[in-house]
């Protein structure tokens, strides 16, 4: 009896109140985030197959990791993901920068354009995948149709059948969908940019290109790093667009990390191995985030020094 009242008193004391109030949320987070995370980590040390639940209890240590480290297909998908990410992010940066610079120049209709620019981001990535699958279809696709009508080619270009072209088509879809993240953040940077240093640069002898190269671009880079952090996480886990457009094919030529992981986990039912792959790919994302974040912190040292 006295123990119970003691607990009761402690629970309702003033210091404890915030924690008591947060308790349901904390419990929910433990259940939906931490527990699955630990569980998946555990399964990566087992030969767990969804079809054979008893395999969950067989501990095999690092065997899954050993396997994937010696698995050529995994490293190809890994390398392809890094390459895909590098190409997509750089192109998105360049296009986003171009769009931001153009929109920054216009005075009339700027708000409307800014909104229109965001449209691609409002669509579900799956639908974007279907849309581009149709556009790049070699028989009935818009792209081939247009090229043939314009007389540029009389061939049916196998956009989604040829490995390299298919990768390009997927990159095109990604870039179409998400360039506006760069554009909007870089535009915010341009709006925030003080005008005086630009004029000082003109007086100091810069032509338009030099002003852009030495003053505007360094000022915008922190904004670009934010966009790059967001997009590197996004692209590193690219799945929906790839899966709808090519399904990782032809013959695994567009297989990225997460399509491979999904295939391993669900099609081959090797959940343990898939989870081991997932943990390796998370390390990749952490590495990218860390890289851009370091850049951002370095840039923050001089932000605000313009006034």
């Amino acid at each position, binding site marked *: 009896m006295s123990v119970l009242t003691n607990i009761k008193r402690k629970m309702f004391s003033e210091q404890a109140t915030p924690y008591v109030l947060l308790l349901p949320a904390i419990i929910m987070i433990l259940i939906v985030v931490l527990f699955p995370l630990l569980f998946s980590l555990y399964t990566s040390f087992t030969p767990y197959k969804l079809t054979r639940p008893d395999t969950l209890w067989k501990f095999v240590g690092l065997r899954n990791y050993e396997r994937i480290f010696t698995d050529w297909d995994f490293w190809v998908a890994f390398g392809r993901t890094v390459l895909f990410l590098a190409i997509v992010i750089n192109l998105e940066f360049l296009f986003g920068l171009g769009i931001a610079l153009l929109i920054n120049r216009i005075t009339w209709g700027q708000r409307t354009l800014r909104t229109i620019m965001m449209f691609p981001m409002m669509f579900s990535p799956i639908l974007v995948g279907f849309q581009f699958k149709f556009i790049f279809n070699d028989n009935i696709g818009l792209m081939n149709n247009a090229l043939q009508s314009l007389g540029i080619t009389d061939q049916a270009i196998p956009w989604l059948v040829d490995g390299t072209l298919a990768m390009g088509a997927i990159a095109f879809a990604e870039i179409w969908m998400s360039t506006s993240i760069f554009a909007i953040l870089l535009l915010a940077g341009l709006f925030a940019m003080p005008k005086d240093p630009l004029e000082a640069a003109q007086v100091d002898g810069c032509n338009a290109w*030099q002003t852009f190269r030495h003053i505007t671009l360094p000022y915008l880079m922190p904004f670009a790093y934010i966009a790059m952090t967001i997009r590197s996480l996004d692209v590193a886990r690219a799945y929906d667009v790839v899966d709808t457009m090519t399904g990782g094919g032809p013959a695994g030529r567009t297989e990225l990390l997460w399509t491979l992981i999904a295939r391993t986990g669900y099609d081959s039912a090797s959940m343990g191995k898939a989870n081991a792959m997932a943990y390796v790919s998370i390390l990749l994302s952490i590495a990218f985030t860390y890289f851009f974040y370091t850049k951002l912190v370095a840039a923050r040292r001089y932000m605000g020094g313009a006034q």
Partner: protein
Amino acid sequence: MTEVSLQQVVKRYGQLEVVHAIDLEIRHSEFVVLVGPSGCGKSTTLRMIAGLEEISDGTIKIGDKVVNKLPPRDRNISMVFQNYALYPHMSVRENLGFGLKIAKHPESEINKRVEEAAEILGLGMLMDRLPAELSGGQRQRVAMGRAIVRNPDVFLFDEPLSNLDAKLRVQMRTEIKKLHKRVNNTIVYVTHDQVEAMTLADRIVIMRDGHIEQVGSPLKVFDHPNNTFVASFIGSPPMNQLSGKVIEKEGVPHIDLEGNLTIPVPNRARNHVQVGQQVIVGVRPDDLTPEGHGMSDVGEIVSFDLSVSISEPLGTESILFSTIGNNEVQGKMLNPRPIEGEERLTFNLSLDRTHLFDAETGQNVLGHSDGSN
């Protein structure tokens, strides 16, 4: 030899004309200050000289070269901005050397000139810092350093001291003056602070509403203001302006001021006014002093009694507030003694130093000074 010459220079924004056909000749190695209230077009004029604003009409020459269409980089000028405009991502050293780097000077020469400028401005310890890590005064120094490194034909200063606190402002003012003595380039300097203008300038250009009201040496514009605007703008506290009417009294022209006060027309203005003319009498507080507390040797004097309502002691002098008719006037008391409550004092007005303006046009009845010294 670098003169700057503005001929009939106009600036329009659409229909709105903000600078109206101004003419200005700036001599080689002259320190010219453009001064005026905000919105008078002084910064616009400076930016037109810099090439940061296009001119709508007229001609601007730097040296012998018409620069109307030239971009800033081809004018061989440097500019110090109000907000310093340092490059935020570059260290002090890089900021100073940036212009030279763009002009593709060899690195050894850049280093030498940067070190020289740093020496002049005392930036030695700060060379590797970023602008964000500097105080306002230090940033201002870097901005000036960046300007002198390039050894331009003309320096342009756009209110460079207005973001600094009062003490630092006085200090930097002296440094700018020293800098000019040392480098001897032509300087065009914009400010709204008449004290800055008076202390720095070889010649002051006073602007209002896109017109030049007067050009002259600091003492010239102080001693012979062309009109009531210049009279009130230059000098602190501002010149008292009393309205009155010219009358004939005992065969001599007098001015009948409000408040039953009549003073003779100063000798030098006697041939420039007519009986019946409405005039404004300008009297600087320095020339309206209580008996025994003024400057000696001030020539002809008129004396009258005024009651002092407020006194502002400044140490070496006190500013006294009173009224003549409906006009509030300020006088100056040298070697001040405390004034308690309202006190009636006899004031001396030194007649030879009063200014007379036509009430209708606001122009000095003696005509305009010619703009040279």
